[in-house]
């Protein structure tokens, strides 16, 4: 059972990512493009939210707050990030998707959240995100909120 307790860690992660529970997404693998075609019959409202806690003195926000996309349609936007301190910092953006069941349908083909981002003091950059929503998103989901939280991981490395 002790081993089971530890085994629960990868089991938990794997279940959550594959079932899209808790808005978790698999950060290690970029999305495979399985082209199911664009579903023009409906539009999904995707909202972008950026959070950084006050101990990360960066400016971090999406350049577009919300967009309506057709499932299957690829969309690109960028997030602005600025290091407001005078020293180099390394951050990691952790995504969270709500509602939770939508997580496995929002596929990011390119995302700054897949890697750690480094900025020297007083530098800024635009970080792109390319995503699409799988056409088999359940019909009752019409709004998806993609939220990024920025964490300071300079000390960990």
């Amino acid at each position, binding site marked *: 059972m002790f081993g089971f307790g530890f085994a629960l860690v990868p089991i938990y992660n794997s279940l959550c990512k594959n079932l899209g529970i*808790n*808005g978790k997404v698999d*950060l290690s693998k*970029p*999305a495979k*493009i399985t082209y199911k075609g664009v579903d023009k019959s409906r539009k999904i409202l995707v*909202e972008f*939210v950026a*959070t950084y*806690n*006050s*101990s*990360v*003195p960066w400016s971090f926000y999406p350049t577009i*707050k919300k967009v309506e996309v057709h499932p299957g349609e690829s969309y690109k936007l960028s997030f602005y*990030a*600025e*290091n*407001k*301190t005078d020293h180099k910092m390394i951050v990691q953006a*952790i995504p*969270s*998707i*709500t*509602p939770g069941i939508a997580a496995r349908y929002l596929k*990011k*083909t*390119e*995302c*700054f*959240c*897949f*890697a*750690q*981002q*480094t*900025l020297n003091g*007083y*530098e*800024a*950059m*635009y*970080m*792109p995100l*390319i995503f699409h929503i799988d056409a088999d998103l359940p019909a*009752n*989901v*019409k*709004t998806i*909120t993609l*939220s990024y*939280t920025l*964490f*300071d991981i*300079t*000390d960990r490395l």
Partner: protein
Amino acid sequence: MLKIGLIKKAFLVFFCSMFINLAFAQADNWQLNMFKGVTPVSRDIYHLHMIAMLVCAIIGIVVFGIMIYSLIYHRKSKGHKAAHFHDNTRLEIVWTIIPFLILLGLAFPATRTLIKADNTERAEVTIKVVGSQWKWEYFYLDEGIHFYSNLSTPFKAIENKVQKGENYLLEVDNEIVLPTHKKIRFLVTANDVIHSWWVPELGIKRDAIPGFMHESWARIEKEGVYRGQCTELCGIGHGYMPIVVRAVSEEDFKVWVKAQREKQEQWNNLQTDLSKQRQMTRHELMSLGKKRYREVCAFCHREDGTGLPPMYPALKGSSVAVGYPISRHSLMILNGSPGSAMQSYQYMFSNEEIAAIVTYERNAWENNTNDLVQPIDIAKLRVTNIHQPKLVKKSKLGGLK
């Protein structure tokens, strides 16, 4: 001139609504039951609660009734002789099936209410709620305003030195103002540890988990003031981070949003405008500093400055509070200390407040440096914090190229 007129109007709206709300403000000292609340979900929850209580009461009356009857009549002292039966399979099956059916009966309304509470689609207003130790921060995503909401109960009231107000521990400096009759979506997350955002009369409780976002919704059907508290142990200040929701009409909401935007801009400009900083006397600095210190800093650093080492350092006799340069001390509050629990307070405190706190800390508890820090010193530090960023193309991507 138009700007000032709008601000005046906003104040007038608030002033009047305060009088109306006073009538609702009196809380029940002997409240026995759940709030019915002012949203469709809170009402459904109330009804579910009442049904569950009724079911339990009926079962209780039957079972306890039989038991009490036995306790009275089936006593040896009353001469009752013990029977010899000790099982009855049919009876066991009956009283397995009947409770199961009762549970089915409860499951239907519960499921219905849950599905309704889970449906956050088609929201008209979206609010991001961020919990930190020990305050809430509200972001109105579409309206572009955000502010902190801190407990505003005076420290002296908590210490029993002055009379406690009617809304003791349930009052804040900046209330979250929401429009009635609109579907409002709440995106809840946290900055540090797990908190929980709960307003009983809205029927919403959502845990605020750092790094994750969860949503809930409400459609407030009645104007008024609704109070709640943080509902997940989050450290020393867990009991001191309330929530106050003020629900107003849509028009009043629009007016308020505009006023907030202006207020925010003015505040931001003021903090970095070197020409607008005022000169404060030692007395003003020490008394404002003491007040704000006790309301915010004392949670960790304690009223007597001894802190709780090793997590929360002592300020009494500390090298930061008595050492030089003073800017190191001010920057500690302005920017926080990364990697520790000391957050940045630059958006929460004004220059006057930081100057006052620094002055207080440098002179209280026998620190006695006799240093006075003025708001302009803090403003200068803020200005040096501002740099035109250099745009680079350093973003690393994962994924297909």
